[in-house]
């Protein structure tokens, strides 16, 4: 900001220069601190929950899952039913795959006739364990935490 022109200001400039500078710095400094404080609050408040922090929730009975055949289950959290494929594999044990295609997150479908996951959006194809076989997806389907407690299948948040 420029000072008012004229005699008065020249006079004032001479006598009050350090004081004025102090006041100006004060204005800038105080508004800066206030702004940063609010930005900090905004940033912390809007920060998303950590990856994998979703709770373990039951999604079905272990008996209902045939060996090596993925089944879509609903993980009810966050006000929605999240799609998860649960698979009781013969070699790796239980795995849970997030059903969002890793390309642009359309929902993939398990096609039992060819034993592959296919994405209807741009033709991504994955094998039973979620590895990419073709199409644009840049990485395998995401896995989610899975635990078997008694006969109950529990699924949790995303891994990685």
């Amino acid at each position, binding site marked *: 900001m420029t000072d008012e022109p004229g005699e008065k200001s020249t006079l004032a400039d001479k006598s009050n220069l350090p004081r004025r500078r102090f006041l100006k710095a004060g204005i800038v400094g105080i508004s800066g601190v206030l702004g940063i404080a609010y930005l900090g609050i905004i940033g912390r408040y*809007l*920060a*998303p*929950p950590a*990856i994998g922090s979703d709770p373990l929730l039951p999604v079905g009975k272990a008996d209902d899952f045939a060996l090596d055949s993925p089944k*879509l289950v*609903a993980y009810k*959290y*966050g*006000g*929605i*039913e*999240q*799609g998860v494929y649960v698979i009781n594999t013969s070699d790796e044990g239980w795995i849970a795959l997030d059903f*969002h295609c890793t*390309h*642009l*997150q*359309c*929902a*993939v*479908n*398990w*096609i039992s*006739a*060819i034993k592959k996951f*296919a*994405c*209807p*959006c*741009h*033709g991504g194809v994955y094998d039973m364990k979620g590895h990419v076989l*073709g*199409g*644009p997806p*840049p990485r395998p389907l995401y896995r989610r935490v899975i635990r078997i407690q008694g006969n109950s299948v529990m699924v949790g948040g*995303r891994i990685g």
Partner: protein
Amino acid sequence: MGRWLDERLQFSELLRSVFEHPIPKPSNLLDYLGFATLFAFASQTITGILLATAYIPSAAEAYNSIKVLQTAPLGVYVRSLHSWGANFMVVLIFLHLLRVFYEGAYKKPRELTWLMGVILFLATLGLAFTGYLLPWNQEGYWATTVGSAMPGYIPVIGEYILRIMRNGLEVTGATLTRFYAVHMLVLPLIILLAFTPHFFFVLRQGMSVADKLEAAKRRGEDIEAKSIPFYPNVAFRMILLVVVVAVVLWVLAGVYPKSLGSPADPLNRNHYVPTPAWYFFGVYQLLKYFPGRLDVIAMVGLPLLFLIVLFGLPWLDRNPSHSPRKRPVALSIATVLVLGLIFLTYQGIRSVPKPLPTSGVIADPSYKADIDPIFQSRCVGCHGQSGGYSLDTYANVMRKNVIPGHPNASLLVKRIEGKVAPQMPLGLQPLSKDQIQTIKNWIKAGAKNN
């Protein structure tokens, strides 16, 4: 009243600068597009506030609250107005931007007006994007899922941005409330903050079309014969344009009420294939041309370039001339871009599954009228990228899977009938019996390009 205010605020001079501005004859309707956009925004504000009185921003209630609203005819109409109004605002602000570009009105001394305008344009797109999720219907839910996945491709910070937008990894109830706050408060505030200076600059500097007249006036020429006063002549024409826009909006909203569709199903039991709102089809289609790892270019690179060019235009374009005829380079680039965008949008819309006639076999089908639409809507989405089995053009269809005259020997038919696994379309609803028969009839008749 006017004098009373002026005594206190001294703004008559400011107003005089625009109200007594001479505008060259004939005054062009296209120069009023900004004003028409302002009208669309006003309409959005009014209908938006009305909708807010009925809408409940929660995953459990949002859809039903709109459904309840839609039981009253006026509720249907107001929502339809808001939805159509969004389209109007996007189109009008885009046309306004093009007109300003064509006139060279972003150049000195109006760089800041342009800058504010770019912010307004982006905020409008933001409003359109966030508003799409709010009804919590299947369309909006999945369009938002795919749309908000794109920033995930930004190197390093992409995933964090995605999670901040959604408040988590998935589009959940928490995303809905976040979008609601952004749609209702943040973006309107940004628009207000950008619009105030935008409008003030226009008041201060006048419309750019009048610059030449002003210069002539300063030289002492008599401009009376070449000009009409802004007020009331041009202002009246502006109001007329607004009336035309308003009537078209009201009629469209009444004749084609916006349907609500089915409620969001994040589990996607019906194998719905997402599509964006039509004005984002350009990006959607662009993705198909950047296969594999290159899609980062379409999702991050091009949008970034677009932003840089938009914001930097007044400084990137050093040509001082305002006259379209003296700016061949700028105008040709812009023409190519706009044509490209129109083409992409058109292609994108064409490739979306349309509700095709599912009943009724066509005895003598034509490729263009009957067969291609089935392929475009049911096959090209996936096959567009996977080379060998493309069905997007006649030549590709005929490459190897169709044997003219022999439908049952053609692999295409075997696949859609499921005689050869996997049945196509993969993991989706099979084609209807009638559609399959129509395709067979076409192959039987020689699979001609008719």
